[in-house]
């Protein structure tokens, strides 16, 4: 079975509140006086976006800050449900959006390993097989049974990275915010990322590092204000993106 991503007419809408979240009082007040000015504004982070990604593609997404890149990634990971349009994903998504998402500070490293692993879709048996490798990769043999709130930032990031990347990814969704801890670890982490990207059937990544995208991707999509501006080979799109920016 080949994996694919098919996004049809996707729109994602947020509410921007001018002051704060609506209170019950205002809810009632609005019921009684429907004509009062609304406290919020609707804002489309993604507007009518159609996109097809086939197996084997390595897609990079570029665009200015606030263009909707991360929202699109989160929609692909099903964190944001489509407001309009549809999203068909064939294959298992491995989201690497933020290191340490879903860690619980009071839990020990090992407990977090099992919690996080379960969230990423692994069975207990899989995890007990992977456990040793993850701990070794994170270099945390001594501290694995300590609650993660006592971890240094580096230890925390290493464990989270090791858990998230010990996968056989089918569809790999990557945010550039996802990075691997302290300097000595970075080399190891980068190698592992490249391996992961090679193993994945589909890779979608957001980054501002254009050279990296040019090196890793087979296709680049340029997004502005929630819509696709250009889509094509990395060299071409990146140079027109740079030309437009300067």
């Amino acid at each position, binding site marked *: 079975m080949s994996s694919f991503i098919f996004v049809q007419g996707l729109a994602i809408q947020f509410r921007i509140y001018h002051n704060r979240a*609506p209170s019950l009082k205002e809810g009632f007040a609005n019921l009684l006086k429907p004509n009062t000015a609304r406290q919020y504004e609707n804002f489309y982070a993604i507007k009518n976006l159609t996109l097809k990604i086939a197996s084997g593609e390595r897609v990079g997404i570029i665009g200015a800050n606030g263009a909707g890149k991360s929202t699109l990634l989160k929609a692909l990971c099903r964190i944001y449900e489509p407001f309009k349009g549809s999203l068909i994903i064939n294959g298992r998504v491995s989201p690497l959006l933020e290191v340490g*998402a879903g860690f619980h500070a009071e*839990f020990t490293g090992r407990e977090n390993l099992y919690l996080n692993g379960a969230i990423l879709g692994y069975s207990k048996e899989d995890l007990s097989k992977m456990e040793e490798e993850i701990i070794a990769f994170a270099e945390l043999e001594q501290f694995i049974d300590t609650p993660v709130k006592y971890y240094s930032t580096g230890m925390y990031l290493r464990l989270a990275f090791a858990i998230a990347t010990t996968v056989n990814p089918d569809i790999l969704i990557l945010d550039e915010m996802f990075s691997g801890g302290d300097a000595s670890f970075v080399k190891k982490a980068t190698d592992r990322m490249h391996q992961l990207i090679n193993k994945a059937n589909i890779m979608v990544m957001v980054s501002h590092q254009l050279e990296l995208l040019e090196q890793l991707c087979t296709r680049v999509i340029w997004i502005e204000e929630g819509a696709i501006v250009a889509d094509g080979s990395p060299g071409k799109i990146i140079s027109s993106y740079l030309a437009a920016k300067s």
Partner: protein
Amino acid sequence: MKQINFILELYSYRNVLRQLIKQQLVLRYRRTVFGYLWTLINPLLTMSITAIVFSALFKMDFRSYVIYLFSGLMAWNCFCSIVTQLSGVFITYESLIKKIFIPKIIFPLAQSIGTLIDSLLSFIAIYTIIYLINPEISWSILFIPVAYLVLFIFAFGIGLIVSVATVFYRDLQHVISILMQAWFFLTPVMYKVSGVSLEAASLIKLNPVTPFIELFRAPLFLNQMPQSGTIATCCIYAAVSMALGALVFMRYKNLIIYRL
């Protein structure tokens, strides 16, 4: 088809459910001396205080009042903690919900199953006390698991509505705790319906929690099975509550992420 997918997806996330329940049960008392025993000690202490105060106040026979009170309170406490805990459940797990996809129903499920497990364990402690006071066992005690199941479904349905509503109106979290207190006084837990005025009694009869209290009180206080009418009423309430809860949840679950 949609329902089948929903159930299949839920099944594939059973490990997450298990982990979240474990997290809830293990963490609360980590690094305390008595540890998990607090789950048992805590309700026992509060119940005992109530028993001492009110048996003195109402000049009732202490022993029979303790059994009357404890059997009602265990039902109320279970109901109340499920509803109150669910009111904040999506806010509690906000950071997780915003970062990774997990079927939303997992959170209220984990929270309420955790609370149910607590309730079942404290039942054992409470029942020990009841047994020491009145060492008479009838077969009707076997009805208790059924009573817990029906009560759980009823509470879960209401809790589901509250959990979704709280995401949209944060004030509800505070309103709920006050409402639950008012509701508690409308429920014949500490007093007997026969002792109150006629107007109050008719209001208490309308209270949907009242028959659930009966469900626990009949086997424990009267040593008999609940009346079949009471059981039927409870089942209907539970079904209605669950249906409404599921309806509200399915309608709004995809919007939760946008309002957190």
